[in-house]
């Protein structure tokens, strides 16, 4: 298939970027979106031009680095799918595809389609862990029985891959879905209960410090999340935060 790509090109963090149009031919429906990008880049390199920089690692939907805004939607048109798992058969011959980086003050562009997502790391570092005594007498995690429903919910929250599509989709560039998933994956379990109060306080404080927008409950994050992280996580975090700040 033949495509017209409109891609955001930006030389570095301080440069002024712009959308650049590239025609591309010979794309097969069985190729992944990233393979299509690889072909474009090979063409550009052959022509002596700078290839389009984009993040990727696992190419199997688990690392959360292949972030692209494709035709106005994070990770493109297919639900519950990361860009690396998206196939070109989702597009038609002759299509024009716009490809942009995540847009958020808290995710500044490093180059082309790559943004700096270390804001997420700092939110995680602020409280997304359980403190474990590693002096040699560590208790086996499985020795504490956990209700199946709770374990499942915590596990589901933990499937967040930290890609940032929720921020990219949100009209307010809010990081509530990510932060609440990371709060929930611990707070639902007995191991995480001990630090529940400080965890939610510290993670929310860090989230605000990073300059993400305020959540207005539009629900766009949940629709675009490639892992189907649910809005319940946000409701839970709202509840836990209030509890932490008032009762303690």
């Amino acid at each position, binding site marked *: 298939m033949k495509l017209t790509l409109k891609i955001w090109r930006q030389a570095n963090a301080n440069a002024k970027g712009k959308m650049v149009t590239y025609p591309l031919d010979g794309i097969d429906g069985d190729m992944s979106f990233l393979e299509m990008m690889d072909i474009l880049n090979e063409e550009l390199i052959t022509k002596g031009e700078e290839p389009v920089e984009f993040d990727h690692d696992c190419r199997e939907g688990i690392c959360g680095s292949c972030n692209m805004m494709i035709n106005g939607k994070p990770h493109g048109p297919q639900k519950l799918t990361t860009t690396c798992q998206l196939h070109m058969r989702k597009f038609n011959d002759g299509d024009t595809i716009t490809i942009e980086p995540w847009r958020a003050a*808290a995710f500044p562009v490093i180059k082309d389609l790559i943004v700096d997502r270390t804001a997420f790391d700092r939110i995680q570092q602020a409280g997304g862990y359980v403190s474990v005594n590693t002096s040699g007498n560590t208790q086996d995690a499985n020795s504490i029985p956990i209700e199946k429903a709770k374990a499942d919910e915590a596990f589901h929250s933990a499937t967040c891959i930290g890609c940032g599509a929720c921020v990219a989709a949100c009209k307010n560039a809010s990081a509530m879905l990510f932060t609440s998933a990371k709060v929930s994956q611990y707070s639902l379990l007995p191991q995480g209960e001990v630090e529940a109060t400080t965890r939610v306080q510290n993670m929310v404080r860090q989230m605000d410090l990073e300059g993400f927008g305020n959540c207005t*409950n539009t629900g766009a994050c949940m629709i675009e999340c490639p892992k189907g992280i649910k809005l319940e996580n946000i409701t839970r975090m709202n509840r836990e935060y*209030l509890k932490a700040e008032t009762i303690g």
Partner: protein
Amino acid sequence: MSALVKSSLARKWVMALSGLFLVIFLTQHFVINITSVISPDTFNEWSHFMGYNPLVQFVAQPILIAGLIVHFAMGIILDFQNRKARPIKYANYAGGTNASWVSRNMIITGLVVLAFLGLHMYDFWVHEMTVKYIDVQPEDPTRYFHELQAKFVSPIRVGIYVVSFILLAMHLWHGFNSSFQSMGAKAINKGDGLRKFTYAWAVLIPAGFIFIALFHHFTHTH
């Protein structure tokens, strides 16, 4: 506690609580207004009570005005901050495919409602204040029904009224259930019960106000 006031989650709580307070006020306002369709005498009686009871005038009314100011001011602040959170816009943004128009445009429906409130205050509140405190007219417990009907004679006014209440319904469609989400109510994610109630309320109360306006427009005797 100070973190609570500064945090984005606390701002959501402020929006939610002030919004819920306004929802309660709107319900009470509706209950009084609907009596004008059923019995002009009851309407006059209740309106007079609301207009002259010191508790309503000097306690409830200032609280209401404070609630309104907080809700509008916080809404505008939030919108301003949210625009700042994405300084470079997308060339192509399919926002309409993952969230409803009303949820994305609360600032627009909110500002229209604010403009309407301006008109409404001018129509009724400024008038009340003039009658009571500037012209210092004697109490007339029977004037309210005629005053109400007089406001709904002009088709332009009724038109503005109807449009404003449609926008208010849109605002409430997202806002009412959203307030429970912001306060962390588990029930709101279930999709039944509470959520259905908020949607029904968001449509029925504004529709009721529109009905009252049209009723008086077509039946007025002055």
